[in-house]
């Protein structure tokens, strides 16, 4: 369980103090899939960075399973907005890095990587240099690299934002399957309301900067979910609800 109590974050820069987050309270249960949406620059990435342990809060408390979050941990995998691959490693080595770092035997790593190359639609690209892939392919490598260690908590910052619509659909389906199998705790950031409603158990809508969690919309659809859920009237109704909170100006 991840808990945030009255968390605030200010950045101190040359052009003064930027309040990025103010008074965020959030509880994510084990195995829950929580999606955060919000306008650009409202502090979503900041929130994720705090939970990951990259940044310390200016005020408030963050805990995971009762322990304060003091730094990054292999229990919390992160997928960034940018792929951030290591250009000196091949695609295969990038994906297998997490296993290598914890001393997994080479042949086991090899099998696991083969598996992920396959699901990510990257078969045949294992020996390529990471920079020889397209942006969307690189992002899939980054996702595979985070998932291969089967982390208990997945922190994803607009992971599919750079993908084309088709691949994004594939990835969403893949993530739903994965969640069904492994039941990780997921904190997922997106600006795509449809994606939010399709994936999440709850959708949190953040307010403009300094960000706080404004509203929360529960997503009651049963799992396992399939992509055609997005075509049902109930789904559209819920999407409309979230949109009306996020962009009240679009509804009058």
């Amino acid at each position, binding site marked *: 369980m991840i808990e945030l109590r009255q968390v605030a974050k200010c950045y101190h820069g040359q052009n003064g103090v930027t309040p990025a987050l103010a008074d965020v309270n959030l509880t994510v249960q084990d195995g829950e899939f929580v999606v955060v949406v919000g306008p650009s620059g409202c502090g979503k990435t900041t929130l994720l960075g705090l939970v990951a342990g*990259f940044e310390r809060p200016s005020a408030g408390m963050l805990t995971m399973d009762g322990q304060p979050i003091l730094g*990054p941990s*292999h229990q919390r995998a992160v997928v960034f907005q940018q792929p*951030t691959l290591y250009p000196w490693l091949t695609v295969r080595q990038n994906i297998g890095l*997490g296993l290598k770092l914890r001393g997994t035997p080479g042949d086991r790593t090899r099998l696991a990587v083969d598996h992920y190359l396959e699901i990510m639609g990257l078969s045949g690209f294992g020996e390529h*240099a990471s920079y*020889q892939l397209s942006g969307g392919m690189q992002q899939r490598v980054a996702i595979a*690299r*985070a998932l291969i260690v089967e982390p208990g908590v997945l922190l994803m910052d607009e992971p599919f934002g750079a993908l084309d619509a088709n691949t994004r659909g594939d990835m969403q389906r893949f993530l739903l399957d994965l969640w069904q199998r492994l039941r990780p705790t997921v904190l997922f950031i997106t600006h795509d309301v449809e994606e939010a409603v399709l994936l999440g158990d709850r959708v949190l809508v953040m307010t403009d900067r300094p960000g706080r969690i404004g509203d929360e919309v529960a997503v009651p659809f049963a799992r396992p979910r399939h992509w055609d859920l997005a075509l049902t009237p109930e789904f559209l109704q819920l999407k409309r609800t979230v949109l009306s909170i996020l962009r009240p100006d679009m509804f009058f």
Partner: protein
Amino acid sequence: MPTLGAGMPEHFSSPGRQPRWMWVLPLLLVFAVISLWQGLVSFKVVPTLVLPAPSAVWMDAKMLVLQGFQGQTLWSDMWISALRILSGFLAAVLIGAPLGLWMGTHRVVFKLVDPVLQFVRPVPPLAYIPLMVVWFGIGEMSKTMVILLGTIPVIMISALAGVRSTPRQRLQVAECLGATRFQLFRHVILPSALPEIFTGMRVGIGVAWTCLVAAEMIGAASGLGWLVQIAGQDIQVGVIFVGIAAIGVLGYLMELGIRLLERRVVPWRGHT
């Protein structure tokens, strides 16, 4: 990327590839310069003592290679200069790069070493020569030390800058994969710093040559700097020319060597 260009016409395979006839251009320039030079001499615009004819310089070169000048052939001077450069430069890289990496990863080391580095850096390496000669004589040690002292700040600063320029997210990715401090260094920081270190090495090899030639001019009995210096005292302009050309050729070869090594070690250079 050997596979990407396969099957395509030669000049399409990489965007930077020049048309075939481009190699003529430098030859053309050399030909033009030699013609102008021969003209200046033939029409007695300048006395041959100041500017000997190209053919005379060619004779000097042959003499230098076959008989040598004041007891040393050109080859032996080139050889000894190359050895000095390599020993001083390799020492600078082998000591400077780890030191710079260490400074970049440990605050205490940085605070300790940086003031010294900042103090030493603006001192022209030539200023060390008298001291080195007094301490180590005119033997090999003094040359190695001058090159080492002159080059090591460049290498250290490049390694430090390489560590500093490691993108934060690269570190964060590895931290989330459970990397230990050492793994973080080995798998992220070191490879991220390598391109900068190579840039430092390419600057450094130039500095090393400056140091070496100056050191050989002041206190040495062999080497290309010594050759040029002695020839100057004898007003043997042709020999000076050959000496300078030899320095140029060796310097170029070493730069080429570093570039080759760079392409092997950091083929990802320029890619994120």
